[in-house]
């Protein structure tokens, strides 16, 4: 069963075409990797799914419901959450607060309730603090919940971004280069975390990644973008031997001599 479907997605910035006619289907509860050389349009693709950019043409369906045209906060309420290629935490806020911001969706209070700080709202806040704590425990950051986000180590900041993304109860989690800058041990832990998350939270994961070892190990389906276009998709073992993919990464000379 597909959870996310993208049809003929095109994004043009003036004369530059960042994505051209990209179509793909993501199965529920799967891990899909989007790969491609730098500048292939992977992050633009993510930005369109999350509503940061509006596609020039094409549609995006989440559980058969059109989500392009929605504001980013509405897209995230529908159940798409993400992390960033360059870590973008709220640095001046505490670790716990970072996760709580991700849960902002749960707050039903109106303006009056906020100003008067009604008991029902305080109760809601207590419950979400509990949930945030559990998430931090899950990613192994429960000890540093009162620390400022900018004081965490690099790997911990990456994990905090994941906890914050999980806070919104996503159905689909987009990870933009989650292993960038990590050492092999951290990458191994991350691989385990992604797999366990998928089961624990009933998630569908889509990730952009350059670490091919991680990609091949973790993903069930791979989509390859080059110059904004989809050049291949399939199971990891098929992608590994696909001449078009090798060409995109290494240039056409690699195939002739190889």
């Amino acid at each position, binding site marked *: 069963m597909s959870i996310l479907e993208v049809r003929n997605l095109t994004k043009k910035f003036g004369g530059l075409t960042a994505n051209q006619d990209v179509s793909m289907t993501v199965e529920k509860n799967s891990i899909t990797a989007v790969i491609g050389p730098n500048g292939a349009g992977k992050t633009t693709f993510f930005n369109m799914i*999350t509503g*940061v950019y509006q596609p020039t043409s094409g549609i995006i369906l989440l559980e058969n419901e059109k989500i392009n045209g929605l*504001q*980013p*906060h509405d897209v*995230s*309420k529908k159940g798409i*959450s*993400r992390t*960033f290629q*360059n870590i*973008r935490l*709220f*640095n*001046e*806020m505490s670790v716990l*607060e970072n996760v*709580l*911001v*991700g*849960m*902002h*969706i749960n*707050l039903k*209070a109106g*303006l009056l309730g*906020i*100003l008067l*700080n009604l008991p029902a*709202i305080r109760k809601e*806040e207590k419950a*979400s603090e509990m949930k945030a704590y559990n998430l931090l425990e899950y990613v192994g950051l429960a000890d540093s919940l009162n620390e400022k986000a900018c004081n965490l180590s690099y790997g911990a900041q990456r994990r905090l971004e994941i906890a*914050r*993304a999980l*806070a*919104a109860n996503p159905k689909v989690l987009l990870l933009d280069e989650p292993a960038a800058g990590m050492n092999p041990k951290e990458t191994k832990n991350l691989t385990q975390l992604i797999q366990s998350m998928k089961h624990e939270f009933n998630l569908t994961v889509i990730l952009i990644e350059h670490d091919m070892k991680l990609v091949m190990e973790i993903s069930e389906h791979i989509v390859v973008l080059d110059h904004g276009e989809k050049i291949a998709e399939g199971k990891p073992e098929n992608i590994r031997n696909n001449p078009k993919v090798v060409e995109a990464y290494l240039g056409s000379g690699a195939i002739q001599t190889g």
Partner: protein
Amino acid sequence: MLNEVIQTIPQVLIDGLALGTVYAVIALGYTMVYGILELINFAHGEIFMTGAFIGTALLIFMTGTGWGSALPAIVMLIIVLIVTAFLTGFLGMGIERLAYRPLRNAPRLIPLITAIGISFLLQDIVRFIAELTKGNYIVTGPSLFTEQVLIKTSSISSIFNDASIKTSFIIVLVTAVVMMVALDIFVNRTRWGMAMRAVAQDRETASLMTVNVNKVISITFFVGSALGGATGVLFAVQYGTIDPYIGFILGLKAFTAAVLGGIGNIRGAMIGGLLLGVLEMFASANLTLLTGGVFGAEYKDVFAFAILIIVLLFKPEGLLGKPVTEKV
């Protein structure tokens, strides 16, 4: 000479704190909006002024009716404060919606010019309404709290003179402090306050984390303008006579206070406001004495702004501000 300066300190502190709290609360409006949009909302001084007029109109109306004058003055003031806060809050929210939001992605100079335009617009609208109803744009409200209280600070130590306070001073001080504490709790302890801080740090990421950025910005304008409007009422009660142009110089000083404390920093605005108020009152009381009569009390602004320039020379980010690192 030093003795004479020390003698005035109790009175300087009292007057300075009262004026400083007014600056501080208005400065909050500037600093909150700057923190979240990097926009200097020059119309904020005019929101303060509009609040002063709405409050005065309500007070005149209520003292004119039978049931209004039957109420104790303090209850009447509280009602007026709340009603005015709501009205100016919605005014600020409306201004943001109509004038600033369409320009959200325009170069920063453009909303700044718009803000100046809005502030002229408000001045003239208020002047027009005041002249239409009262025949004059300079309006004097009912005097409510005029009793004087003498504080025997000389009994603490003989080097101090006694200080006197108008009861309205106490009311201004208490109300302003209550508003500041409430805001501090709102921003640091509630979820919408947290969303505000998140939007201030990174608007796009906040929106990707389910935060409705437009709503947060609306709330920011509402809260800032409500506080500004309520302060306008306090000002009107304190000084009696108001005109549509009071917002300009007071807004400018409050903005200065916000910069002094570190713009974008809420606690900084409070400290900056209090400091500026006390400095100004100190200068007003002692300049003649300190300069041997060369400069009179009317140079108080020069003195206060000179201090500001010196602080900013050594600490350009303001007292509580953080050095700016360019966002990538």
